[in-house]
């Protein structure tokens, strides 16, 4: 049985099982998911970020994300959520402080090392970032294609995942003719297809209706249960209320921790 089928079968079990550390307040270090002795997927130590000569948009951010953990990242618009995600995506470098990803100093990664780290991370963007000239199938298969795998070796896997997200009959559809929800599911499938160790999702339910949002949340929870650490950036309070997970709250560039 494939991993995706396993996840699907366990989909109804939504019992929370996060290992988040106890509550921490602003200015204190937050380790989500396990104790200090474990390997941390992400570690931020007093990270600050400013664009050019402007004011700091992120101030003294310190937190860790452990394997097999689940947390939300939330906060009002302009609080620095996107900037924090861009640091996590390795598309920005911090102005100060230390960021480690998979125990590697993110600021010292060479171009090819950044690519290797990104292959261990699944990213879901709010605006999907699908390639409009590729079909749903080709978009989901893109990480395999980039990794140099033969198409025949991943075909069944991609088709199965697309069926699981309810797009088994839209394999050949191009993104411009798909609805927002369908695009979102393709974007999620593309992030999951390589079974990443860490899933970063930016407003993954922002373009879907409530039932589908619930279903996607269930998918993320099951992913966490199968070993993937999940960090979801969202404004959707009702969504967060559906699952008991730690919340990282960004406000005015500072990080608060809320359980």
């Amino acid at each position: 049985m494939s991993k995706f089928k396993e996840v699907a079968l366990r989909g109804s079990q939504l019992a929370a099982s996060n290992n988040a550390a106890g509550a921490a307040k602003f200015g204190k270090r937050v380790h989500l998911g396990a104790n200090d002795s474990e390997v941390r997927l992400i570690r931020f130590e007093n990270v600050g970020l400013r664009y050019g000569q402007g004011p700091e948009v992120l101030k003294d951010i310190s937190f860790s994300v452990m394997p097999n953990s689940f947390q939300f990242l939330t906060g009002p618009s302009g609080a620095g959520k996107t900037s924090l995600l861009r640091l996590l995506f390795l598309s920005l470098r911090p102005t100060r402080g230390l960021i480690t990803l998979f125990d590697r100093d993110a600021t010292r990664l060479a171009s090819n090392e950044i690519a290797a780290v990104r292959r261990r991370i699944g990213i879901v963007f709010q605006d999907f970032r699908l390639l409009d000239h590729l079909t749903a199938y080709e978009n989901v298969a893109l990480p395999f294609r980039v990794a140099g795998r033969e198409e025949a070796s991943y075909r069944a896997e991609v088709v199965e995942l697309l069926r699981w997200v309810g797009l088994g009959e839209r394999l050949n559809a191009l993104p411009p003719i798909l609805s927002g929800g369908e695009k979102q599911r393709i974007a999620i499938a593309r992030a999951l297809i390589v079974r990443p160790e860490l899933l970063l999702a930016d407003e993954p339910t922002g373009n879907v209706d409530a039932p589908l949002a619930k279903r996607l949340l269930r998918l993320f929870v099951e992913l966490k249960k199968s070993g993937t650490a999940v960090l979801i950036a969202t404004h959707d309070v009702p969504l967060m209320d559906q699952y008991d997970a730690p919340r990282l709250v960004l406000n005015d560039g500072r990080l608060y921790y809320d359980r």
Partner: protein
Amino acid sequence: MSESEARNPARFGKQAPILPRESMTGRSLLAVIAIMSFLAALTVGSVRVAKISTEEWRGDLSNEMTIQVKPADGRDLEADLQKALTAAQKSPGVSDARAYPKEESEKLLEPWLGTGLDLKSLPVPRLIRLQMSDRSEKNIAALRYALSQSVPNAVLNDHHAFSGRLTAISRAISIFGLAILALVLLATVLSVSFATRGAVAGNRATVEVLHFVGAGDSYIANIFQRHFLGVGLKGALIGGAIAALLFALSRFASRIFNFIAGDGDAAFLFGSLSLDMRGYLEITATVLFVAIVTAIGSRLTVYSTLRNID
């Protein structure tokens, strides 16, 4: 498999290119590369033609020398001519020696003095043409010595200075050709660089996605390089083929001119643009070089552009 999937199977095995072809470059770059390649191939071919001609001239001169017997007061020019001829025929390394008749010597002056002049009153020198079987320094020195002993007013011209000038001209043409070639290649690289920058900028969103799904810079650079190698090869082939065709046609045309004119006047007027096999091989090498330069230029540009993306 559902009914609709069976009706509409996924596009397995034949996937669309990661970067859409139409987003990369239009025909303008192809045209620019074709023009540049045409100029490069024309330069290479012209340099080769010039080299062939100078080598032919040098080859003609290499086995030939001339003795000039100048008229001198109190000396019999005809007797001196005979003495010089005898000395030359006896010299080692000389396979044939022939004195120009007086009429022929005077005829050589016609281009400068015109026809119908009475040259009897002028001190026209006489010439002996030598064919050399061994043109060593030793033989030339021996001949020079023999002449100085028997005919002091005879001068041996080994055409060394003229041959040296031909070598210098040939070298200058080659350097000039190389300089033009370098400029043409530089212009090609710059054109490709601008086009690549445009292509990367036009595909910025796709490049970002590729980065996020784990593609390294080299993977992305390979996609652009493959595309521009194709464009470069196509453009260079078009330009090189037209240049090669032009050389082939000029050879054919000069034959027609010669046939119509009945002598070498056409070649004298228009020069011979006939290219040998090596010349065509050099044009082929230029075509490949332009394609490779295009590919490398695009790769380097992609790397430098990717540093600003992400």
